[in-house]
């Protein structure tokens, strides 16, 4: 009897393992039904995530207020949103400036380097079980968001839309180890490939070994065919160190992302790419030091009657 029970248990275990392997095989073969199941789960979870966000926001704000010793969280959040809006306007303005420059130099070449964006709130961070860097935003298919659209913050590239659901979407962050983006160096226009490292820094591989790359160079997204997944001209990062290994086929460098991934509250999805490549107009402006007025004192020696004769 006990043997029978043990055999039945083992049979159940084998059936469950085979079922799991069967599911893995079906998923790896790309059966659409399984994708639909995940999409359905996200649609079902989305209201709970929103509710959780609403409930947890005061708690998080309270903890944050304690951490920040009395600074009002709401005020900071409002200022952050305002700042984000102004930065987006600045990006748009820079596009227009670039457009004017192009029109002046080449009259028949006109382009509107303007992003059409949909702003969204970050409602969840990636699970710690997933070993990936991703966020969930509260805008989805109903807001015109599609898979492989570029996601930006006020500082630059954030990532790419990986999955889209009705009212939410999952964004793969640029810090994800699987993330790769074609970039060009602002100014020299040399191209390379930037790979995520799982942190706020990334690795740049230049395709041409003859190019001189230096610390402080700004990298911009090179853009993809039909502007998906990457729209051209989006600021990506700043070179922090250059590796000049002797005999290396290509040059490599370490790059720090311009976007701050630790404090992503609101992001924007580029739903319409600019008609013209904005080139370098989105390069962040280096802070210009305020000139300190220099006081120059001219001392004129008093005229003496006789330079050779000592005065008494």
């Amino acid at each position, binding site marked *: 009897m006990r043997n029978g029970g043990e055999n*039945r248990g083992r049979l159940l*275990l084998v059936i469950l*393992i085979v079922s799991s392997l069967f*599911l*893995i095989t079906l998923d790896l073969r790309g059966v659409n039904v399984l994708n639909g199941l995940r999409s359905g789960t996200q649609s079902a979870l989305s209201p709970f995530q929103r509710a959780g966000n609403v409930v947890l926001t005061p708690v*998080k704000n309270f903890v944050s207020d304690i951490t920040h010793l009395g600074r009002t969280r709401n005020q900071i959040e409002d200022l952050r949103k305002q700042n984000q809006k102004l930065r987006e306007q600045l990006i748009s303005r820079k596009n227009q400036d670039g457009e004017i420059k192009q029109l002046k130099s080449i009259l028949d070449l006109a382009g509107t380097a303007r992003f059409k964006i949909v702003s969204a709130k970050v409602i969840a961070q990636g699970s*710690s079980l997933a*070993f990936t860097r991703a966020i969930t935003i509260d805008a989805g298919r109903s807001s015109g968001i599609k898979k492989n659209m570029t996601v930006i913050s006020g500082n630059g590239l954030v990532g790419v839309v990986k999955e889209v659901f009705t009212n939410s979407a999952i964004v793969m962050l640029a810090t994800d*180890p699987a993330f790769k983006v074609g970039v060009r160096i602002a100014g020299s226009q040399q191209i390379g490939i930037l790979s995520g490292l799982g942190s706020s820094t990334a690795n740049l591989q230049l395709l041409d070994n003859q190019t001189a790359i230096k610390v402080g160079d700004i990298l911009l997204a090179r853009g993809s065919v039909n502007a998906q997944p990457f729209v051209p001209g989006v600021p990506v990062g700043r070179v922090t160190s250059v590796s000049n290994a002797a005999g290396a086929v290509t040059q490599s460098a370490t790059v720090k992302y311009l976007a701050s991934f630790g404090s992503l509250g609101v992001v924007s999805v580029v739903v319409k790419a600019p008609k013209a490549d904005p080139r370098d107009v989105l390069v962040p402006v280096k802070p210009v030091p305020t000139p300190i007025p220099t006081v120059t004192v001219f001392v004129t020696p008093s005229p003496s009657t006789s330079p050779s004769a000592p005065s008494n």
Partner: protein
Amino acid sequence: MLLRRFGLTGTIFTFFFIAQEAVISQLSFPAGGFSLFLILTLIWAALSTPDVAAAVGFGAGILLDLSPSTNGPLGHWTLILVLMSYAIAFFSYGDENMRGNPLSIVLMVTLAQAIALASYLVTGFLLGVTATSFSQTLITIAGNALWTLVVTPLLLPVVVWLHDLTFDSRMRI
């Protein structure tokens, strides 16, 4: 009776799954945080017979695979949790020293959780799922284990009560 147990178990696991996705995932914990759902599954398995544990592991794995934040193929977590739940129940079933001691259960769940994560990562690597750097992985696994060690004693009485309610048993821990 079977339908009642199945229904209750399903409701409890669905509730914890929603709590994990809607609440825990939104909080930033140092060193990666923890998975309430995974802890529930492993405690439940430690309190069950191997057959029930494997079946519960299958159901929990399916739910975890359906989570939008999971990056592996569907069935990946299912496979891991079937094996891990069966193993944890197999080692603890019939051993009252193990089952009657809450400290043993806490340590067993913590160890099983770390092994489950490591197994998920290794099998994920074999299935072509891109993983993060080795140091990041170590931090995540160690962080999860530490959090599990803290959270499991708090969750254990609740899970024991729910398990007793579902199976009409009186577990002495």
